């Protein structure tokens, strides 16, 4: 005697209709195709590529620098029971002093990041 499941399976016609025909097997001809996630259809050897040396030369390595306490930097942190403290010095700027990095001459400012790189960074590294 056939089980209910077998009888039900035989009589049931799925209502889901798959769009189109069976997924085609992609033939991989000799032609090299860009990766689906590239920008500008980049391929190995194309003109938008840069060498690994050039890239590594221009990036700042990720380095963890242990903090060295100096006598000036003894600001106590606000633990759960401590009130927050901030020491503020109000005095005029001396010669060759600026109040912010953005006030420095351009050659001393950190390299600005272009819009595309900002988007990339703020998307969490996801394009």
């Amino acid at each position, binding site marked *: 005697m056939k089980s209910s499941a077998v009888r039900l399976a035989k009589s049931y016609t799925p*209502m*889901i*209709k*798959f*769009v*189109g025909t069976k997924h085609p*097997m*992609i033939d*991989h001809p000799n032609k*090299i*195709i*860009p*990766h*689906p*996630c*590239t*920008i500008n259809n*980049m*391929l*190995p050897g*194309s003109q*938008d*590529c*840069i*060498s*690994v040396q050039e*890239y*590594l030369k221009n*990036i700042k*390595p*990720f*380095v*963890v620098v*242990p*903090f060295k306490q100096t006598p000036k*930097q003894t*600001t*106590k*942190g*606000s*633990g*759960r029971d401590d009130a*927050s*403290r*901030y020491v503020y010095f109000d005095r005029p700027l001396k010669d060759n002093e600026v109040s*912010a*990095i*953005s006030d420095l001459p351009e050659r001393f400012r*950190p*390299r600005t*990041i272009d819009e595309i*790189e*900002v988007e*990339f960074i*703020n*998307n*969490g*590294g*996801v*394009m």
Partner: protein
Amino acid sequence: MLRSFISKRSFSISFRNLSPTSKSHDIVIIGGGPGGYVAAIKAAQLGFDTACIEKRGKLGGTCLNVGCIPSKALLNNSLMYHQMQHDSKQRGIDIEGQVKLNIDTFQKAKDKVVNQLTGGVEMLFKKNKVTYYKGNGSFENENVVKVSPVEGLEGSVKEDVLLDAKNIIIATGSEVTPFPGITIDEERIVSSTGALSLKEIPKRLAIIGGGIIGLEMGSVYNRLGSKTTVLEFQDQIGASMDGEVASSIQKILKKQGMDFKLSTKVISAERKGDVVDIVVEKSGKKETIQADVLLVAVGRRPYIEGLNAEKLGLDVDKKGRLVIDDQFNTKFPHIKVIGDVTFGPMLAHKAEEEGIAAAEIFKTGHGHVNYNNIPSVMYSHPEVAWVGKTEEQLKADGIKYKIGKFPFIANSRAKTNMDTEGFVKIIIDAETERLLGAHIIGPNAGEMIAEAGLALEYGASAEDIARVCHAHPTLSEAFKEANLAAYSKPINF
């Protein structure tokens, strides 16, 4: 004569010590993260003599060691802590005394999970007979990979080992992107790695970056009592989320106590003793914010240090991603690249799919990843998950669409769990009603998105999904009802 015998003997001894050990494998994989270890296991299962090189000392890469896994452990346990503190009474659970967090045990619980999983991957390697080399992998030439000892690494190879490889997969992953001008010390100014191992709960936590990593870590410490401020350059949080979903989750997180400063540029940050002073600028106005801990979460970048890829003349793009074609090939067809170190979203599951595809291509010549169907999840509470297209993308592509939405407040299971924040949003083609995108804020969104991914893969329409029987009472009924809302009308809302 005796003298010449001694000198010949000395020469042969010293020659033997200088010559590195040489071994041969069908496939050598550089990197033991989610991409690398999955590729290694799949390759071994397909019959290849496979080797995997990892210099961390533990398999699993960033994901298992300092990423997905430890963060999810902290998220889960911090949520339980928060619920016990704030949510138990209304559920009829009276807790006598104070609910306290033991930070040491909190960290140990996370470390235990990490150790179990990384050990588990090693067991899988043994089970599948993958040869595991602990050391730094780098190219000697296009067919030889050198494994070098790593100082201080237990179990590291003792001397250079040269591996003759018929095929090579580069899976070196990614590293934290530093923020220009900010020095990370992993104590007060931390990356995501340091944020996972803080020794005390900061009273004030500032986060640069409103992407998934920043929001997840912010959620953890917000629940544990930190005053959390997210500093984001863009005008919305949430990386590549749908706009409506991003603004909804921001409202929810704000209600939970997180503070957001959007369209805000960080100028500088400096540690002064036990505090960090952060200078920010918004609409031309500068402000200084002080925090006890600053988390720098501005993204990740490909990691190719020490690989010696320059010896082979491999190419990268300006973001440091190794350039490949659609078969994952570099300029050498026997050298493939997968995972975070190349194109595509930096997600562990994307790397895993590529690892399998790469191994299959080596074996059969065919392997495929559908990049239009890679889910993303943010493990806040409520979770946020999405797959497929956003409304913004469809508008930009000029595609007409319809939307179906169903809130969890109308879902029975969510109500029984007293966890009703969020909704399911389904986007379908206006003409064919085929599923184009699914966006979920709500409990278990990360699990539920798998159903959307399956439907997307099979080209299902909203009606196809809605006509499948979903168990009652489950959260997945909200997914069914949202599809019903997309092409017709929901029953329960």
